[in-house]
């Protein structure tokens, strides 16, 4: 992965997050949550900085980031698409939905489209099992999705949408 240079502002943000948790090693997961929330993802450079601030090894931070599926080390698409792969959705055809999205966007799970618009992920149960199968685009939940609807859903986001507010690295 190419090295990125963190801007002064990003460094300040990360340091501030660490200090709100009193630079306490035990708060690592909370720090990571907060950092990802503000920055969108957790590149190696941010992890190094956090390790430094909390006075722990980078290996430990990296170990935690890679252990939990909620943390991302690569930037997410402008519109992250998540297909629910909970059992209820699975038995109601989530696999076909996933297949169709992959086919339309021409990406695999965990990847983003080259223009950075969409990224695709699976998640475990949104808890809207009554609406199975469920697809989420950003925060919006689409229920009872059929493979034929995918084209329409993606088209909703293809153009003219506002970029979600997020701090640039």
């Amino acid at each position, binding site marked *: 992965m190419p090295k990125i240079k963190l801007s002064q502002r990003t460094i300040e943000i990360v340091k501030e997050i660490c200090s709100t948790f009193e630079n306490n*090693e*035990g*708060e*690592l*997961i*909370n720090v*990571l*949550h907060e950092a990802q929330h503000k920055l969108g993802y957790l590149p190696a450079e941010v992890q190094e900085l956090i390790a430094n601030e909390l006075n722990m090894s980078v290996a430990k931070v990296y*170990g*935690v980031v890679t*252990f*939990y*599926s*909620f*943390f991302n080390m690569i930037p997410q698409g402008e519109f992250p698409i998540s297909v629910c*792969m*909970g*059992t*209820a*959705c*699975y*038995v*109601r*055809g989530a696999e*076909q939905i996933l*297949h*169709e999205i992959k*086919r339309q966007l021409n990406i695999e799970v965990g990847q983003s489209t080259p223009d950075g618009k969409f990224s695709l992920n699976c*998640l*475990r*149960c*949104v*808890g*809207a*099992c*009554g*609406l*199975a199968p*469920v697809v989420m685009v950003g925060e919006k*939940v689409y*229920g009872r999705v*059929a*493979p*034929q609807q*995918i*084209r329409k859903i993606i088209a909703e986001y293809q153009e003219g949408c506002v970029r979600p507010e997020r701090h640039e690295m």
Partner: protein
Amino acid sequence: MADYKMHLLVCGGTGCKASESEQIRDNLLAEVENHDLTDEVQVVMTGCFGFCEKGPIVKVLPDNTFYVQVKPEDAVTIVEEHLVKGRQVNHLLYRDPENDKPVSDSKHMDFYKKQVRIALRNCGFINPENIDEYIARDGYAALAKCLSEQTPQEVIDEIKRSGQRGRGGGGFPTGLKWEITSKSVADQKYVVCNADEGDPGAFMDRSILEGDPHSVIEAMAICGYCTGSSKGLVYIRAEYPLAIQRLKTAITQAREYGLLGEKIFGTPFCFDITLRYGAGAFVCGEETALIHSMEGLRGEPTFKPPFPSESGYLGKPTTVNNVETLASIPVIINKGAGFFSSIGTEKSKGTKVFALAGKINNVGLIEVPMGTTLREVIFDIGGGIKGGKKFKAVQTGGPSGGCLTNSFLDTPIDYDNLISAGSMMGSGGMIVMDEDDCMVSIAKFYLEFTLDESCGKCTPCRIGNKRLFEMLDKITKGLGNEEDLTRLRTLCKVIKDTSLCGLGQTSPNPILSTLDNFFDEYLAHVRDHKCPAGQCKSLVKYTINNDKCTGCTLCFRNCPVGAITGEKRSPHYIDNSICIKCGVCYDKCKFDAVSVS
């Protein structure tokens, strides 16, 4: 709630919210205002009603009218017809599937008739963001009773007498767990609420936290009093933003009312709660892994003993209880152990919440007495199988459980019966499958989950499950042989016996139970290289029967890849080199002309 003549309750659970229930509430509010009824009618957003299949739901009190599948634009009709003119809105009423007659009162619906709601007592009744509504329904009375009238040991004895067992899946007696922590000596002890509901297809805990967060807070304080802990922690999934927000609101309100903090009810007892966020790791439902995760580490389990009750969070004695377990505690204290233990079977007392999902008519959240049979749950409450298909299996216990067949339908549900049937209670996910589901694929699906979620610490789980998955993958691709089945079974046993924690010890269960109950299906895959349910893509082929096809072009129009060709009113044809086997044509065809082979 006394000042208003009528209340409109709008479901604010995740499912209904996804179907615009917030818009419904806003529209109702606006309409109520338009008709100058704001002093008489209160619009409340509640927690989950449970009947997710028919959501969004709007309930009118006091007459208990239950409107289903409400759309934002229906708000006008509800207010004009029901509130102003006093006439029920017929087309929004639930219809009995047997005779198509409208049923207005939820008490008379099959879905609710057999339910007994203890943990879910307030879900769908109160506004979870208003502590006064919880207090109006005996909220915090149990905590007051414990602090002012009972010693910690007396409370523990009461819980023990109630026979309550942990609802997170393990089924360990709650009272005993509390007693062990209370007897451990330390300068600091902790109460932990395990709200890391990772079981795919289960949403019990989330619904309780969203619909009745105060019951969990109250129970944690009671536990703190019993065990001598002044600090409580809720370990909650970051994927549950609504539950987190409601819990935070509830904690703030409880602090303002002096129900959390210093000197609660004027007694020396101090207790406060903070939140810890999970980050998407199923293994963190295991208590030692959960504790490590709360300490900011990788959520890897460690060997027990020592149990958390003796050495847990930061090495201090810690009681870890599941959300549903806690939500029932205030009822046990208020109504007495006798009330709770009068419900259920000999060894499993009280009620259990299940998330009913899959190929069933009434998807939703239900709470039934222990000892209710699977048949009652699936056919009476659940309304049977979707689309009139045949029941095939019900999966309980999530990735750690097993699939139960027809022959277990009349088994009363309790911890021990489910284990002897080859499954387990688990946290309460119940997924129903019909004749179209391939059991080998289901086993593979669960294994893929465990594989993904294995923390990698112990070899049997990390490597063994990978090998199991490869074998299943081979079988579903038609490349397996009969020896693979023997090998599967042997490896399953080894993993069960040698894994470190509950995740690994139970991960082979979905395979073992399907091998036991659906051996024929495995044989068909390895011997004849066929998938009887027509689900394994490598083994199926879709064709159109010329005699049955009317050329209606429905399949042609719906095929996502353009694999179907044909003229209007003449038989169509599927090009198998293009077909992605999505099955849309099969589902759409009204003339049964598409067949799977």
